[in-house]
């Protein structure tokens, strides 16, 4: 970390004046240096050709540092993954901070370092950015927005319209790890072996699936906010398909499961990162699964459900003991229950 003559971010650092320039010139942003970003104009100059995906997300997470990561890599991975879910090869990201005054510069630095490594791992560049500062009590340490663009893979045919009866629904890994890693900090849970957020970039995994299976990948989506249940119910509703799920097939870390029991939370509604759902042709489902098992990001992948002609718009889950229940969307925030 470069030596600075300030320890915390203050309003002045967002005022656009000397302090803003001082922050910009302090060297902290050198971490992200590349030819495009270094131009430092009002925007970045890119070359793009043809079908392109464009996505945005704002990230707010408390705590900003959590087991397995921090808000910086979350923000990079979030947009990288949204682009990947479109079948795109994420290339250029914007990075915009809203910092609450008083944030230690050290924490800001750590976030930038995480951004840098997440970008490296994903193979993307931050090409334009923005830093704003809000008064104490008008923010929550730091909010990060990333937006991104990238060319769509020529073999990608990702669209909910391609979903067909018989399609298998593959989940790429354990559910609820990210949400519970964060909840564990908030609720003061201690884990025997740490539960980690599995935030990571999925673009390499996804693109090699598309490369290999092309139009047999019908839909990709990352079940972040609202969890697996909500995102599947959304798809069932908007695409007017029926979905059957099997509780016993859901991969889940035992500690994560225990934490959910303790707090009375349903893991199907807990937020995920570094996880995706793929709707794939029945015929290729096993091959996709086998390919995923070779990948670090897919080693726990499982088929959790099937697209069915019956009960359109409904998601029905068979419980571990064989009973059936209907899956609806998360009605509001999941709050820890006592009863």
């Amino acid at each position, binding site marked *: 970390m470069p030596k600075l003559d300030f320890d915390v971010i203050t309003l002045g650092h967002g005022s656009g004046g000397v302090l803003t320039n001082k922050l910009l010139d302090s060297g902290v942003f050198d971490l992200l240096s590349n030819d495009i970003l270094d131009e430092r104009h009002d925007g970045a100059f890119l070359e793009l050709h043809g079908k392109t995906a464009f996505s945005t997300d704002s990230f707010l997470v408390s705590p900003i540092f959590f087991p397995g990561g921090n808000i910086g890599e979350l923000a990079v991975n979030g947009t990288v993954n949204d682009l990947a879910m479109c079948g795109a090869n994420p290339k250029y990201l914007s990075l915009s901070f809203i910092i609450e005054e008083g944030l230690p510069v050290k924490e800001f630095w750590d976030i930038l370092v995480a951004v840098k490594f997440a970008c490296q791992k994903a193979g993307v560049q931050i090409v334009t950015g923005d830093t704003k500062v809000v008064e104490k009590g008008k923010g929550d340490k730091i909010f990060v927005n990333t937006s991104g663009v990238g060319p769509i893979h020529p073999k990608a045919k990702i669209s909910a319209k391609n979903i067909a009866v018989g399609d298998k629904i593959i989940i790429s890994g354990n559910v609820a790890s990210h949400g519970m890693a964060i909840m*564990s900090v908030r609720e*003061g*849970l*201690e*884990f*025997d*072996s740490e*539960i980690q957020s599995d935030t990571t970039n999925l673009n390499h995994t996804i693109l090699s699936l598309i490369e290999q299976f092309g139009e047999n990948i019908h839909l990709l989506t990352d079940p972040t906010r609202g969890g697996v249940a909500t995102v599947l119910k959304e798809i069932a509703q908007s695409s007017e398909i029926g979905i059957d799920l099997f509780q016993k097939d859901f991969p889940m870390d*035992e*500690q994560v*499961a*225990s*934490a959910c*029991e*303790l707090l*009375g939370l349903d893991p199907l509604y807990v937020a995920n990162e570094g996880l995706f759902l793929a709707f794939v042709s029945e015929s290729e489902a096993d091959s996709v699964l086998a390919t995923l098992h070779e990948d670090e990001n897919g080693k726990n992948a499982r088929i959790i459900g099937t697209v069915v002609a019956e009960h359109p718009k409904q998601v029905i889950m068979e419980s571990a003991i064989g009973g059936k229940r209907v899956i609806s969307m998360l009605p509001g925030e999941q709050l820890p*229950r*006592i*009863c």
Partner: protein
Amino acid sequence: MCLAIPGKIKSIEIQYGGMVRMAKVSFGGITKEASLEMLPDADVDDYVLVHVGVAISKVNEEEAQKTFKYLEEIGELGELEDVDEYLPKSE
């Protein structure tokens, strides 16, 4: 349901100058504090049922097996496999 789940006492600590006996209780790999004031004789390695941060019952190991044996007991299940199969596994 008065959400309450069973966990194993890992350690016991006296807090507030002897006023409160608190336990670290492990629930399938996660640990949370619980008061032992309602279970003065609970000890390390005991399984206790915890509700809103208070341990309210010690699990009775012997009784715990009855659910697995019940069908056999009422004599309606001749060919029931060995009950042990259902018993809590040792960790």
